[in-house]
């Protein structure tokens, strides 16, 4: 298999989900709704999240044994892409990723207990990042020690998206010298010291999570032997879905910019007739088009071992800069209006900064790729 060539494909389910997600997200996440939720402490509409659960979207990539649809993450991609397109808020991504971690490394008991709940619409979250800001999920400072009160935790997790509403949180810790994952239930979460963080993407709700003094039962530990695989899968799943979200965002960003360039006139001409704005907008569009091709290919290849890893890292490495460029130019090309909070361009730019720095930025993934393909 040549490094140059990826493979792309589309399942019927993907096509169908693309269509329904497109309509759903457009309806449920108008730009007015997005802005209203920015000012809302919760940050999303629980009724919409519930509807998504009812549509079965939280179980797309969960086996039927746990009440899921038994499809793959590839089929989650169109949903997340359309959420991105409409800047839709809510714990869909967090819950999906937490479910993947449990699916990958959970004991049978954990899977049977937790996964059907998540499929049914219980929000969950992943707590992997720590203050060292290193994207390598194996770089873990938090500790889990067997003690009087069961497994006693310590350390701090940061940038835990949706920890404010999550009823389950999967956190990475070091246990007996090895990376481990521990499942925090609602009670344990309540025992954590939670602080809402101020993050650049105001459509997100992110939290710092202090684990000191929190303890869990021994059966909260996921299967230690499966943890390394689960950590890698989580990084790749997060990268895939984050890329899909960025591609959706890119399409939305370009659409709104194009509309402005057609509408707005200066010196008696629509500003979109000036090549100084027109051609970079084409560049931005083509950057997103390439990113989309990478994402669909990464979705198609995701379960394909090393090939999947290459495809996903390429998608993430391309999508981040593509959305950043599109949104940066969107601000500039809106002129004075682009400098206002009212203009939507800033929403996409902030979104780009957020997604780029989840699960590794472009340079991180290129450096991983260098080891994989050079």
């Amino acid at each position, binding site marked *: 298999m040549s490094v140059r060539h990826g493979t792309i494909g589309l399942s019927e389910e993907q096509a169908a989900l693309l269509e329904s997600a497109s309509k759903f997200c457009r309806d449920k996440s108008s730009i007015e709704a997005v802005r209203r939720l920015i000012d809302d402490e919760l940050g999303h509409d629980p009724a919409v999240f519930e509807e998504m659960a009812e549509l079965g979207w939280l179980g797309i990539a969960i086996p039927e044994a746990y009440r899921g649809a038994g499809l793959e993450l590839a089929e989650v991609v169109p949903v997340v892409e359309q959420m991105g397109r409409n800047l839709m808020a809510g714990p869909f991504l967090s819950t999906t990723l937490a479910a993947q971690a449990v699916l990958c490394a959970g004991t049978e008991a954990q899977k049977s207990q937790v996964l059907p709940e998540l499929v049914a619409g219980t929000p969950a979250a992943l707590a992997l990042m720590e203050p060292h800001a*290193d*994207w390598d999920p194996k770089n873990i400072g938090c500790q889990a020690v067997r003690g009087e009160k069961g497994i006693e935790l310590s350390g701090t997790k940061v940038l835990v998206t949706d920890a404010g509403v999550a009823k389950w949180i999967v956190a990475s810790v070091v246990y007996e010298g090895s990376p481990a994952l521990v499942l925090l239930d609602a009670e344990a979460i309540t025992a954590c010291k939670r602080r809402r*963080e101020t*993050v650049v993407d105001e459509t997100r709700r992110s939290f710092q999570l202090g684990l000191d003094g929190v303890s869990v039962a021994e059966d909260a530990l996921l299967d230690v032997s499966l943890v390394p695989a689960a950590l890698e899968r989580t990084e790749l799943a997060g990268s895939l879905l984050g890329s899909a979200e960025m591609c959706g965002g890119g399409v939305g960003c370009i659409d709104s910019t194009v509309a402005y360039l057609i509408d707005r006139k*200066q010196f008696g001409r629509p500003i979109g007739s000036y090549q100084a*704005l027109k051609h970079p907008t084409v560049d931005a569009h083509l950057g997103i088009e390439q990113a989309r091709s990478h994402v669909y290919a990464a979705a198609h290849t995701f379960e394909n071992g090393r090939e999947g890893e290459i495809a996903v890292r390429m998608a993430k490495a391309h999508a981040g800069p593509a959305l950043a460029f599109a949104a940066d130019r969107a601000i*500039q090309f809106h002129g004075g209006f682009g400098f206002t909070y009212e203009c939507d361009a800033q929403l996409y730019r902030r979104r780009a900064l957020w997604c780029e720095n989840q699960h590794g*930025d472009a340079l991180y993934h290129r*450096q991983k790729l260098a080891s994989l393909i050079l």
Partner: protein
Amino acid sequence: MSSPSKRERDEYRAEASAWFEENVPAQPDFMLPLTFMEVGTDDQFHFLCDWQNRVYEAGYLGAAWPKEYGGGGLDQAFQDIATEQMRRHGSPIMLNTIGLSWAGPLILDMGTHEQRERYIKGILSAEDIWCQGFSEPDHGSDLGNAQTRAVRDGDEWVINGTKIWTTHGNYAKYMILLARSIPDTPNKYAGLSFFLSPMRVPGIEAIPIRKLTGEYGFTETFFTDARIPGDSLIGEEGQGWAVAMRTLEYERSARGGQAGGLSIKVPDAEEVVDLARRARRSGRPAIEDPVVRDKLVELLIEDRGLGLCGARQRLAPLNQERPFSLGLSSKLMQTEFIRRLNEFAISMQGARAAYYVGDPDAIDDGTSQRSYLNAFSATIGGGTSQIQANIVAEHVLGLPKS
């Protein structure tokens, strides 16, 4: 006036350095703006008014402006030294930049003796804050198309229209205002006049605009039958375009005469190098990554290059063929560089890049993120980079109009 000697300059530098060392205020418990365009709260405003006044009283602002109007009457070299010392000692920015750098030199150059007496000292002392009314909502880049009307009525002008992007619009006592006093001229530029307009008269309302950072700093300014004195005019009626163009030359530093003083604190590449030492990527200081290092060097080269272009402007033999090249392009080059520099500074922060101003874990309190977003004020305001590129293309290279 002969140039001051090296000794005189050294002495002045030592005095200024000592004064700023002693007097630069400590960081208050709120965030200070990094540019004069970012004043969004009353706390910030009062703090900066006070500081500017103290600097002026100490003689380090307007040092080269005429003594008779409140300046120091010294050689420009001294003011340059004072400004440099402000930068070195981490002084907050000078609030009244529009007065100090644009309106002030204009009044000194073109104003009547009376106008100079009335306005100059208040500009320096920050007693009279100035704002600028050029852009309008429907034609931001097309200044010559200004539609705000000025109609003469007895001893007054009656102003109607809307201006936008008015820095300090809600704090200012005066505005430099471009308005159309002669309607329906065949050439749109010929109908414009330029006013030194009071802001605190009935019929003028300044509504703060929220910036993309979430903060404030500009207003949209509405004129509804606002009456301003007949002698507000500067330059002849119908000559407003020429006066506005001259003002833009002060703004772009293509023409001298400014009062001096720090108006913008932008990160420079060395600060980004410093950040690279502190920020961590992939478990090690960002500066240890060879790709980051290469980019840092590239940025340092560009940063120095921009400074050198400024210095080269003063060496005539090195600017013979296209003498306006560096002057007319400096805004474009500088502002785009700052935007890219900030963008890169964010990229070195690993996962912490996702924090924003106000989070205790944000690196340097999110300065990079905020400065990146604020950088667009300079790539858009005062003529977008795209307009600047047209100016360079047409006025420096002689390429045809778009």
